[in-house]
């Protein structure tokens, strides 16, 4: 039961990360490596604030720290004309130092015994069980982010972002400011990632400098699993499917580790394989179709 609920909670909280990855990867069409740094940035900010007693401020600041990281990557990408992937790598590397500085040069920070969001709500509502509170809070946050982002992509600026990812040539010759749009999108995407990190810090009660290693692949895996379930349709469905994908991803991982199919340390390799295989499906299908045509043509020639 704990495993079931625990995976749901993790799935929902990492679902916010998956929404961020969906925005950069699917809508803006750029795999954004900033994620690897901005997740820990949010995590560290939130943990340090909670450590000094301001856990709500920590959550709010984690959103802004993510957005700031996104702005930097956006600036490098657009104004400095650095390759999008490279821009992300630059920000990510720089953030490692920033994150260490935020955590006062400690590799990890523990929040045991400190008030954080989850323990605060548990104290205020003692009639509710631990798991109920954790699940409810995770659900509320995931829902709020979902609704805001879905509404956002129905506004005019949201439409501009989708058009930028879809046909940049067209947008750059229109009255839309492409650079500003891209920077803004990366800020929003990383704000989601930062918030996810901020919530995770208080949820698990500690922050680790290495929490975000391979987190982009986790996000991508979630997005892709969601797409396998729902198909690639509208943005609204895409955002919901990213969260559902994240939950399913956590269940797959929980199931695999509980049944000892593979040891816990193999998680990242498995995630990488899921993403690698899923992204190569279109190419494999194409090759299969081509070889089928060739084979049939060959048979005809022999007959």
């Amino acid at each position, binding site marked *: 039961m704990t495993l079931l609920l625990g995976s749901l909670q993790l799935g929902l909280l990492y679902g916010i990360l998956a929404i961020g990855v969906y925005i950069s990867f699917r809508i803006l069409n750029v795999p954004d490596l900033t994620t690897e740094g901005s997740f820990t940035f949010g995590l560290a900010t939130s943990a340090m604030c909670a450590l000094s007693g301001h856990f709500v401020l920590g959550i709010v600041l984690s959103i802004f720290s993510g957005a700031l990281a996104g702005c930097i990557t956006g600036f490098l990408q657009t104004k400095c004309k650095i390759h999008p992937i490279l821009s992300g790598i630059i920000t990510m590397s720089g953030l490692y130092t920033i994150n260490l500085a935020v955590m006062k040069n400690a590799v990890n920070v523990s929040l045991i015994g400190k008030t954080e969001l989850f323990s605060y709500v548990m104290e205020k509502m003692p009639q509710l069980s631990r798991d109920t509170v954790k699940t409810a809070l995770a659900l509320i946050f995931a829902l709020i982010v979902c609704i805001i982002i879905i509404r956002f992509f*129905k*506004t*005019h*600026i*949201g*439409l*501009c972002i*989708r*058009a930028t990812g*879809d*046909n940049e*040539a*067209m*947008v*750059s*010759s*229109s*009255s*839309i*400011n*492409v650079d500003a749009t891209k920077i803004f999108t990366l800020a929003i995407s990383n704000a989601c990632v930062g918030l996810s990190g901020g919530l995770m810090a208080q949820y698990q009660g500690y922050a680790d400098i290495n929490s975000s290693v391979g987190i982009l692949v986790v996000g991508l895996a979630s997005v892709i699993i969601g797409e396998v379930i729902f198909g690639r349709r509208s943005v609204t469905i895409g955002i919901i499917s990213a969260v559902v994908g994240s939950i399913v991803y956590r269940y797959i991982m929980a199931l695999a580790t509980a049944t000892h199919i593979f040891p816990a340390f193999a998680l990242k390799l498995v995630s990488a394989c899921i993403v690698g295989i899923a992204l190569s499906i279109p190419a494999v299908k194409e090759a299969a179709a081509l070889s089928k045509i060739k084979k049939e043509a060959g048979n005809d020639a022999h007959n």
Partner: protein
Amino acid sequence: MLTINNAVKIFSQGTPNEHKALSGLNLHLERGEFVTVVGSNGAGKSTMFNAICGNFLLNSGSIFVDGQNITYMKEHKRAGFIGRVFQDPMKGTAPNLTIEENLALAYSRQKTGPFGAAVNKKNRDMFKEALSEFNMGLEDRMQTKVGLLSGGQRQVVTLLMCTLVTPKLLLLDEHTAALDPATAEKVMEITERIVDRNNLTTLMITHNLNSALRTGTRTIMMDSGNIILDVSGEERAKMTLDDLLNMYSLKKKEAFDNDRMLLS
């Protein structure tokens, strides 16, 4: 409406590949004029369009639209009052957005602000009405992704996007060249109707000399970065296709003779 003063654009300046694409071009368009532009490849037609739209800055010279100096204005700012349709139907629309979303992209910013709903009932009805005028059945396919439309249909959507909010200047860059003859005819007819109704100041590049003389109110011919022929009114009305062709080869021959003189 549009004034270009002594525009010079040199590509790869200072290298052996130096190429003068615009050499002191002067052009003035009155409000409501529909000018067709002809000329061989490399004559500087598209360079002129790119200069007007701000894809690059001129080496020297200035550009005014409606009295406003836009020589150094940013590209996306100019796009607010200059509509442009490209030859490639893929360039003007976003394929994964629906027809109504594409139209809303061009329309709703001025109307609802950046955080307003992009597509609402009111502008949806307006888009429908605007599309139904063209009798292409597009008004019943508002939710269709533009990527599924044919080239001609996409060009019509692009044209409508450029003119939903009336631009000060409309630039058509061989916008029917990639279409089959029947569709090209239809798109041209729609173009004329839109230009006529909104009294748009328009520049249209075409390689079809016949339609260059038939459409619009004035025709200019460009060669090596300058205007070598500018006809309008009665002179243009009397001009035949042969006249235009003769004029064209005459100018070309002159250039050729000059070259021969240089080489001999």
